[in-house]
């Protein structure tokens, strides 16, 4: 059942991306009536996969890369749905396809042979509530960063001033919302978990270093804007660099660098 849910979710996200692209290219100003509902349906299916795996392993299923990708994709779909539902600005029409493509890419990677899908109960180090809070909040924060990077790209690519201003505002708001959640999840709860499990808050493992780097980039992003009053291009570039760092922290460290966080 899990495989059917995950595959159906992938199809729904792909269909949503296709509909959004078609409406963007052909129908101009008109918003499509279905793509966000497809995202919501995909989100529900992916959460169902997480719930079913959690029941099987008797622990919240966010303890390996496949489970993390499924959860992350689900949260991004939810962010895309909320973006479409609550933001009526013209810019959101351009931003949503970007968000959808990121969810599609992540879920596609989860189906690749690079990511094992075996259902395995957690080893002792992973049996912690702090780990669950660490992973889930980090991904919720990062889902906001996905919206911000899509908005940043729209800002840099758009020609109409109105679209650029709206995209800039959405990019900043997304970083401002995601930053505290990411800080608490990725850094604070991650450090607390490490202390409870191994007796050390921080061990400068490559994944920890890259998470800190991601946080520093978004810190710079917020400070250039709030303190130095720099808007527009520099904020957009920092949002893109921050997201690149987020993605490298997730994939690059696991596949290219030796890390204690090899499980997810």
């Amino acid at each position, binding site marked *: 059942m899990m495989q059917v849910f995950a595959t159906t979710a992938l199809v729904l996200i792909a269909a949503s991306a296709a509909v959004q692209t078609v409406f963007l290219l052909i129908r101009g100003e008109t918003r499509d009536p279905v793509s966000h509902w497809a995202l919501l349906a995909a989100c529900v299916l992916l959460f169902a996969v997480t719930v079913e795996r959690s029941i099987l392993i008797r622990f919240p299923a966010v303890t390996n890369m496949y489970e993390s990708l499924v959860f992350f994709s689900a949260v991004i779909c939810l962010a895309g749905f909320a973006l479409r539902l609550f933001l009526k600005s013209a810019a959101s029409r351009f931003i949503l396809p970007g968000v959808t493509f990121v969810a599609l890419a992540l879920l596609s990677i989860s189906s690749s042979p690079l990511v094992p899908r075996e259902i*395995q*109960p957690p*080893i*002792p*180090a992973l*049996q*912690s509530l*702090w780990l669950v809070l660490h992973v889930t909040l980090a991904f919720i924060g990062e889902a906001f960063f996905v919206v911000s990077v899509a908005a940043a790209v729209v800002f840099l690519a758009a020609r109409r001033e109105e679209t650029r201003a709206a995209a800039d505002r959405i990019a900043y*708001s997304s970083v*401002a*919302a995601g*930053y*505290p959640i990411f*800080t*608490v999840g990725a850094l*604070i709860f991650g*450090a*607390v*978990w490490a*202390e*409870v*499990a*191994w*007796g*050390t*808050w*921080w061990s*400068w493992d*490559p994944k920890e*270093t*890259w998470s*800190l*780097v991601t946080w*520093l*980039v978004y*810190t*710079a992003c917020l*400070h*250039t804007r709030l*303190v*130095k009053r720099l808007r527009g291009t520099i904020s957009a570039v920092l949002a893109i660099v921050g997201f690149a760092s987020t993605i490298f922290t997730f994939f690059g*460290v696991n596949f290219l*660098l*030796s890390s204690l966080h090899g499980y997810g």
Partner: protein
Amino acid sequence: MLYRLLKSVRLGIALILVITALSLLSTLVPQGRERTYYQERYPPALYTVIMTIGFTTYFSSLLFVIPVLLFTLNLGICTVDRMVRQARKKADRRYGPDIVHVALLVLAAGGLVTALARRESDFVMAPGEEVAVTPRSTIRLRSFEYLTYSSGMPRAWISTVDVMRDGALETSAFPIRVNHPLRVDGVSVYQFTWENRSTFRFRDRTGAETTVPVGGIFEDRDSLWYFADAVVDGGVWKALLQQYRGRKLISTRTLAVAESLGGYTLLGVTQKLVTGLRVVRDPGFALVIVGVVLLGAGLALTFIQNRRESTVSP
């Protein structure tokens, strides 16, 4: 002039970028290995640069410590300056960012105390054994369990201990597991590792029985036999022995049950699971906890205030 430079946000951002760039580079160089590791893997010029600037232990090198100290100083001055300005304001006060900045300073202080004063020690215990974890507190191991899933993967390592303080029982049967340390008398005790402790039972020439642990020795004429390990050979446990003459290794052999060597006959090999615990004393613990709580509170306040302002503003 210097004060103005140190309270500049531009300096803060520049330092963030420097720390970020150097930290990223450090993840490309495996940290804390032997000198020969780098010598074998990097071209001579790069090897010289890496060793000279201390990039193999980047996070304790001046290359990291100096920018971080400067950043902490910058953050401290900016925070005080900002708080003074906030106090003068009659309206539109935003305390969230101030609390976040103070939290980061407290965390930096906690990190410094931890880096300078944290101590850890590891020990191995068998059931029934006692270890003093502080001058006043002792733990006695009641039992050690290694539980596995049906697939054979580890499910839990549980060291059940009694805690004695000043000789009196304070806590009975506390289960130390990964993610469930024992906190006692200012130290934390963690489930760290486990191992199989082997002992060998022998009968000597006189018919008396004796036991020897791994690491033990016995003399045989001009040689010394060292019990290097217990190994499984052909489905049975055997003693792995190394023969020394002086400091020179002469031979290595295994000895099965009922086999004899120099008048000693091996009667049996006993395997016992023993637990490995780690005791950590971290004087920075309280400061880090305060910093973490302040950081959470500051971020929450910033977030709530941002939300309120974005809801109120047109």
